């Protein structure tokens, strides 16, 4: 296994999918000769021809709507939205068609398509280039939403997404594009709808995904100094949600913190808190807390560090999990 970056792992997944299945087509803005602004499609046009990987006019609703038609016509489009906020023009197509076509036609038409969206911040991008837009998609029934936290998962999840008979919103954490690890191409990882425990621990569960998986792991290391043994769960699939893996962990530890970059209010973390609390209420020593982005438009580069959950903020939150309290008597 050679060590490759997440961007390279995604590139490998796309290449292998194009190789294995004639129906797979890659298109979008600048994905052709340029290879995408993050080089995720680097060299694919050169190696497989414009037939398989091509540039389109600059219109996101157009790209997604055109992909819907192509998927209806038997292809498996993998389209790229150049940045998170630039997927918004496609919101109607995604919400009213991509998510619903199978349902509307009672299974007569399916839409095996993948919408790749580089998301979240941490790379010093200017406004509109750093949104964490997962909550918009996870609240839309009919979509699968996945996000890798590691290069290996980038490969595995993208292959699985392309093979999925359901449309998938594939969220790529920009700030991890350049993170590296050895990646195997054998596709024997966890199924695409399962969370994984990335690190075992017995005192508290950190629930993270995408860009925050690495931050959670770092926090777990730092927490040792405080005497906390931290378990880290990487959700991978935001929708559907893997209750089993997550609640098993929280039941073991009795404490949990959900971490994400998106604004907290109405964010994805709220769902995690709500369902974990409902299922683990009697095992919880403290409320499930969240460490999230602030409830503000994503800040300019020079201020973005205040927006992003970091080790300190997560540790401060872990510290609030009522470690010294007596067992809580409800109603007291």
């Amino acid at each position, binding site marked *: 296994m050679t060590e490759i970056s997440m961007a390279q792992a995604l590139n490998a997944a796309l290449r292998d999918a194009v190789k294995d299945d004639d129906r797979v087509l890659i298109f979008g803005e600048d994905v052709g000769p340029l290879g995408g602004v993050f080089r995720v499609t680097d060299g694919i046009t050169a190696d497989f021809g414009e037939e398989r990987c091509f540039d389109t006019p600059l*219109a996101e609703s157009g790209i997604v*709507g055109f992909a819907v038609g192509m998927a*209806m016509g038997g*292809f498996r489009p993998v389209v790229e939205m150049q940045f998170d906020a630039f997927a918004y023009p496609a919101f109607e197509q995604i919400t009213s068609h991509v998510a619903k076509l199978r349902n509307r*036609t*009672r*299974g007569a*038409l399916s839409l095996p398509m993948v919408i790749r969206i580089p998301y979240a911040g941490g790379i010093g991008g200017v406004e509109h280039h750093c949104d964490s837009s997962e909550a918009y998609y996870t609240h839309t029934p009919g979509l699968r939403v996945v996000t890798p936290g590691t290069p290996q998962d980038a490969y595995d999840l993208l292959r699985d997404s392309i093979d999925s008979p359901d449309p998938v919103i594939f969220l790529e954490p920009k700030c991890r594009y350049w993170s590296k690890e050895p990646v195997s191409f054998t596709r024997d990882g966890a199924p695409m709808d399962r969370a994984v425990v990335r690190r075992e621990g017995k005192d508290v569960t950190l629930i993270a995904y995408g860009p925050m998986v690495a931050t959670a792991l770092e926090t777990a290391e730092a927490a040792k100094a405080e005497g906390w043994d931290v378990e880290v769960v990487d959700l991978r699939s935001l929708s559907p949600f893997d*209750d089993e893996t997550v609640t098993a962990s929280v039941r073991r530890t009795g404490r949990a913190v959900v971490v994400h970059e998106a604004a907290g209010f109405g964010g994805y973390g709220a769902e995690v808190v709500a369902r974990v609390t409902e299922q683990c209420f009697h095992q919880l020593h403290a409320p499930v807390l969240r460490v999230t982005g602030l409830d503000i438009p994503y800040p300019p580069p020079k201020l973005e560090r205040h927006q992003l959950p970091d080790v300190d903020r997560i540790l401060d939150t872990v510290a609030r999990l009522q470690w010294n309290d007596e067992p809580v008597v409800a109603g007291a």
Partner: protein
Amino acid sequence: MSRETPAAALLPSEVPVRFLAEDGTRADEHGGYAEPPSDRLVEAYRLMVLGRRFDAQATALTKQGRLAVYPSSAGQEACQVASALALTEADWLFPTYRDSVALVARGLEPGEILTLLRGDAHCGYDPATTRVAPQCTPLATQTLHAAGLAHAMQRRGEDAVAFALIGDGATSEGDFHEALNFAAVFKAPVVFFVQNNGFAISVPFEKQSAAPALAYKGVGYGVRSEQVDGNDAVAVLSVLDDAVAHARAGRGPVLVEAHTYRIDAHTNADDATRYRDQAEVEKWRAADPVRRLETYLTGRNLLSDNDIERFRAEAETFAAGVRDTLNADVEPDPMSLFEHVYAVPTRQLAAQRALVAAELEAVEG
């Protein structure tokens, strides 16, 4: 700057193409277009009679509460029937909520056409086998699907085109613009057919667009365009045949605008007197497409009184069938709610299905 087609070749004719005057006599403002063979015109007439009767029946069914709502095609029969006739079985049709008559002409089951508006399911027919996309409500969105599907067929070398219906109002949506552009850039075999019926619900065309005509939009995308008198079935069929042939031959997309009129209100639930004069409606009634074609065909001895009688009888029988179908009570299965959200229901949905099943059991005892 050097483009394949000079701009002038893309522009529509200055006045809408017409074969028939309003009184059914020949008008011959048809440029070089050819008159379709008479058997096609008779078939068009038959289907227009059928469609009009179907339409009246559907509206009647709303009054009896058998349909939740119905957007009538009355006055637009020439456009709708010609849309179906211009296509082969292999071609894909992308209708809106207003295009029930086109689906009747295409041969779909009336009960299945009305499933959506009856409230049983989102789409009554099987799009994969009928090659008719679900009746589309989010305006203009289907034009992109049509462009994409046309491109898919083109890639596979299928001898088929996609045909997208759209209203005048919906042309204002961004998706229409993006669809024209994608279709042109990919040279996809797709025809965009605008039924400009003068209104988007209550909004008259004058407030919708300041263009000389919507057909003038094509040139801005490099798309060949045409405008046609939408109440002249001969002209509509001729222009659409030509457009479909152009697309089928791999010469790229075509935009056709038909000038027609929505005789009824937007739907049975709408009150058109709030925003338009009855005089205008009467003026357009005089341009009725069914009568116009009838006069022309009888005048040329292509249609006998006997034929007309037969077609009307057929339409009556058809309408009776629609009535019977719609009067039969169908109760959609609540469990179906969970079946097609994903290819395989998620654990989450399985749990919700169990909940609803338990509720139903509790109620049913």
